[in-house]
């Protein structure tokens, strides 16, 4: 019995000693891009600490917004390298966690998950980003709050409406907060405006939308069984206001 166990342990030890092993220095990286950065790049460095070469079979990112690349297809024993993960920030906000799965021919460790945590700084936080009035509703002003991010100082913001049918009024409420009052001239017709919000010393633009919405839809009628439901017209485009913008600075 003892001999059998000893033989088993020895065989495991021999296997471990001879195997290839791609060892990553870190499997999770946290990135802090600047407010205007378009991309965030993480470098996952590794070393083949085994005695045989390791081949990469695939490197896949969890999302189309992240591109992952290896420098080489095969890593000889003892060599170092890195997997580069490039995250396209786009219009994303907050903390973004994306993963890259590395598949190798190392039988002991065929899959490694690399995690890229990107903390996107938010200069201004606009809430809500959408206000609306139902057609025929009283055209009272509606408030949008703009909070300045903790690590930033903003003294003034500029708000521009794409349509002259909407008026905006900016008020500083203190503690790094602003209040934007938006008001349509009337609510007789369905229309909308895009509000562009900018701080005085940053090119970064933030948006909010104000709309007078059409009449509520008619009561629901379930689609007949086996037939696809009717859907809105294909690829609707929002009416774009081409009127001169009205702006207000605070």
């Amino acid at each position, binding site marked *: 019995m003892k001999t059998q166990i000893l033989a088993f342990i020895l065989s495991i030890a021999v296997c471990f000693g001879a195997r290839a092993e791609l060892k990553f220095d870190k499997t999770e990286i946290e990135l802090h891009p600047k407010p205007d950065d378009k991309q965030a790049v993480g470098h996952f460095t590794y070393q083949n600490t085994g005695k045989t070469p390791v081949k990469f079979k695939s490197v896949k990112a969890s999302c189309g917004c992240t591109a992952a690349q290896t420098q080489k297809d095969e890593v000889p024993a003892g060599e170092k390298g890195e997997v580069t993960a490039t995250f396209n920030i786009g219009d994303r906000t907050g903390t973004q966690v994306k993963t890259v799965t590395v598949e190798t021919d190392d039988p002991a460790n065929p899959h490694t998950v690399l995690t890229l945590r990107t903390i996107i700084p938010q200069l201004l936080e606009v809430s809500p980003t959408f206000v609306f009035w139902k057609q025929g509703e009283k055209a009272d002003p509606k408030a949008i709050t703009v909070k300045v991010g903790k690590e930033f100082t903003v003294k003034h913001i500029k708000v521009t409406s794409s349509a002259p049918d909407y008026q905006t009024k900016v008020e500083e409420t203190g503690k790094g907060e602003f209040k934007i009052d938006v008001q349509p001239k009337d609510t007789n017709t369905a229309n909308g405006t895009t509000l562009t919000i900018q701080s005085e010393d940053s090119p970064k633009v933030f948006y909010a939308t104000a709309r007078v919405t059409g009449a509520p839809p008619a009561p629901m009628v379930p689609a007949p069984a086996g037939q*696809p439901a009717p859907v809105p017209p294909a690829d*609707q485009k929002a009416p774009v206001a081409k009127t001169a913008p009205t702006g207000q600075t605070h």
Partner: protein
Amino acid sequence: MKLSLTRQALVLAALSLFPAMGEAIYFRGKISWRSPIPPSEMVSVDQARALGGNVIWVDARPDEEFARDHVPGALSLNEDRWNELLPQFLAAWSPGKKVVVYCSAESCDLAREAAERLRKEAQVPDVFVLEGGWEAWLKKNR
């Protein structure tokens, strides 16, 4: 003989615990779990269909995938061009409409993230994520 085999099995099982414990300690806190979507925020293809014309389909996949194919009438709204695409969606929305967001498959996160932004940032009510995503829709409709 039977006793010996049982003993060996127990010893092997006990031995396997050590590397497992080591791995659990080494990787603690390194696994990023996705927060599950509450069932009340999910709809199946059949449930979405039953909403009839009262639904706006939102495709949260990247532009290339949307261009290749999408649910008829769906609006593209992805986080690569969120600020540019959101006004199109809001122009189609009106109070009382339900919104069904989808991405490629069950495993993708894009629909969940887009739905969350619509609810929290734009404060649009009745936003649901399609169970199984585009793959599920294709299975039922093609």
